[in-house]
């Protein structure tokens, strides 16, 4: 049951965009049409699903205080957690590169659909944020971490597809010229955030 709870919680209550504003830059830049935003959402979910569990294992077996004791008891009081930022971003950059090559080789159709978004994900803060939250919240095992990663990705996907659909409709509305484009997108995201706030305080 714990897995389902974490999954639902990370989609709605701890939504990456509406609760923590992670990945806002690509959220604002790529949400002009539903089709491209769906592609980016899938790519982000995919990368989160791979990088967060890998970073969890690194954190557990290399970085945490005393984590190296499985190598030899002499290393039991080594604390490498100050290295976690550099290691996490290196892992993310490397995995994004590998994922890109694998998809290009085995599924050219998916590769063409994702296009330029794949390499850009390395610098998407939702991905690094996923790893940092994982470290901070102290999940019990790798199953929980995977549920958290999948849920965060799907939450991000829902948010970007939602705003893209609204922006497609907005093209036909009369908006003050100074508010057009970025300004109105911010305000609508704020209103969507207020709607998502109704999930807050729900204990699951």
């Amino acid at each position: 049951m714990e897995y389902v709870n974490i999954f639902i919680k990370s989609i709605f209550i701890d939504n990456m965009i509406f609760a923590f504003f992670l990945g806002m830059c690509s959220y604002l830049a790529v949400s002009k049409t539903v089709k491209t935003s769906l592609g980016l959402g899938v790519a982000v979910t995919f990368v989160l699903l791979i990088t967060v569990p890998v970073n969890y294992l690194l954190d557990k077996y290399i970085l945490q205080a005393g984590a190296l004791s499985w190598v030899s008891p002499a290393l039991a009081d080594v604390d490498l957690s100050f290295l976690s930022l550099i290691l996490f971003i290196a892992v993310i950059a490397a995995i994004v590169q590998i994922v890109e090559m694998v998809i290009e080789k085995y599924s050219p159709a998916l590769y063409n659909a994702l296009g330029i978004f794949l390499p850009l994900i390395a610098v998407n803060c939702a991905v690094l944020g996923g790893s940092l939250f994982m470290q901070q919240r102290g999940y019990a095992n790798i199953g929980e971490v995977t549920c958290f990663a999948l849920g965060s990705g799907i939450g991000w996907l829902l948010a970007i597809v939602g705003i893209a659909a609204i922006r497609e409709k907005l093209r036909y509305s009369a908006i003050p010229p100074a508010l057009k484009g970025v300004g109105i997108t911010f305000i609508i995201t704020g209103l969507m955030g207020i709607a998502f706030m109704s999930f807050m305080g729900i204990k699951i």
Partner: protein
Amino acid sequence: MKNTDLIKLPFSKNNPILVQVLGICSCLAVTAQLKPAVVMALSVTVVVVLANVIISLLRNTIPPRIRIIVQLVVVSTLVVLVDQVLKAYMYDVSKQLSVFVGLIITNCIVMGRLEAFAMVQKPWASFLDGLGNGLGYSVILIVLGFVRELFGSGTLWGYPVLEKLGLYNIGYENNGLMIMPPMALILVGIIIWIHRSRNKELCE
């Protein structure tokens, strides 16, 4: 471009947040109170300036194909330094900022300035450009932090301003929505609206 323009333009005509729409994530998440907003603004400014100078010094030796990874390594090293300094000297603020110090790595302003400016310009110009953009970002953060703390909790830098003015005795209530995440988005939307009404050429 003239050196004074490098400092001046990012404040208004080419503001990183209002016009380039970069670095949104951190700008929204840390501005519920003035103090973390100021600390975050300073940290980002320091990182942008130093990263700009370092990359500009290295620009002729970085092979173009691996430049993103080199940039990421330089930036994440600087962010680790900032993180450790904050943890040592301002532990409470560092706890409040939580993952957002680490997320300076993927702050689009930093990567954007490195790509667009430091890779092709001399160190002194890059220094000024980094300073200008860091300060342009800081101004927005401080304005947001000021408004949200004043109206949301009735304090400034933790000092109960509105209580001392006696506003609560005549029936004033804090606006709880101001400290909620969605209000930050709506405020940025409104700032963009005001800014573009004054600078018509920026309208879309």
